[in-house]
């Protein structure tokens, strides 16, 4: 890929991520915020692919854009229809600019650290397919976390089902 194309792709995706993540914060309509989240996640998936992480990018698209977003939109539909008119967007005890100021301060701190830090970087880049090597890592070096996370997924699934089920008769 040519240098110009990579630069163009990066700045386009970066702008998309920036605008849509701000949209998630400021948007009052939950569905619009969810759409902003979708654009943000899909752009991050594009950045992954730009970084040579094709497997992670595809996983991001499948799991986030395909799964989590649908869950969130279901959540919005299931919970926001009744009291739509009286949603309060910000709290009373803390003014909303305080949270924004804290987040902005942390961003400025991160910015100053990142712009000062120096990392030992490699000079040239190659981009082979990563899926095979990642699969091998999953089953060798990271076997224990891999199995743990499958157990965690089972527990999360069972927990979610138990949390949302209707009360069974005879249940305390």
């Amino acid at each position, binding site marked *: 890929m040519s240098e110009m194309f*990579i*630069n163009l792709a990066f700045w386009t995706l970066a702008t998309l*991520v*920036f605008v849509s*993540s701000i949209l*998630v*914060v400021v948007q009052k309509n*939950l569905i619009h*915020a*969810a759409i902003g989240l979708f654009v*943000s996640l899909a752009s*991050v998936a594009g*950045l*992954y692919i*730009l*970084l040579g*992480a094709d*497997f*992670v990018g595809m*996983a*991001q698209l499948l*799991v*986030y854009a395909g*799964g*989590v977003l649908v*869950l*969130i939109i*279901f*959540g919005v539909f*299931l*919970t*926001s229809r009744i*009291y739509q008119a009286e*949603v309060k*967007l910000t*709290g009373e005890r803390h003014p*909303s600019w305080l*949270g924004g100021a*804290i987040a*902005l301060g*942390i*961003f400025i701190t*991160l910015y100053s650290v*990142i712009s000062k830090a120096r*990392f030992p*970087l*490699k000079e040239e*880049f190659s981009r082979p397919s*990563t899926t095979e*090597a990642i699969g091998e*890592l*999953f089953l060798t*070096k990271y076997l224990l976390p891999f199995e743990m*996370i499958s157990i*965690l*997924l089972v527990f999360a*699934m069972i927990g*979610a*089902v138990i*949390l949302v089920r209707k009360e069974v008769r005879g249940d305390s």
Partner: protein
Amino acid sequence: MLKLENFLLLSAVLFSAGLACVLIRRNIIQMLMGVELILNSAALNFVAFAYFTPEKIPLSGHVFSVFIIVLAAAEAAVALALVLAVFRMFGTVDIESVKDLKG
């Protein structure tokens, strides 16, 4: 040419936006979206460092990103189940009105 600093700054933007979302918004679902943004910024950092690291086969970062994605999916499922339970109990998803431990 891609630069590590740009990716880290973008990830910092994502993190700050997510943090602002969690701190400012009072709707549980929108706070959850902020948490997703924060998790995404961490995964983006992992992949960016994996790309720019001098290591020969720099895939540990990718593996951790996949773990983060799976964890985020599990977290979203459980959190939305909790949101539904809260909505059933209190009739609202406004975080300010959820005050009782035992309804």
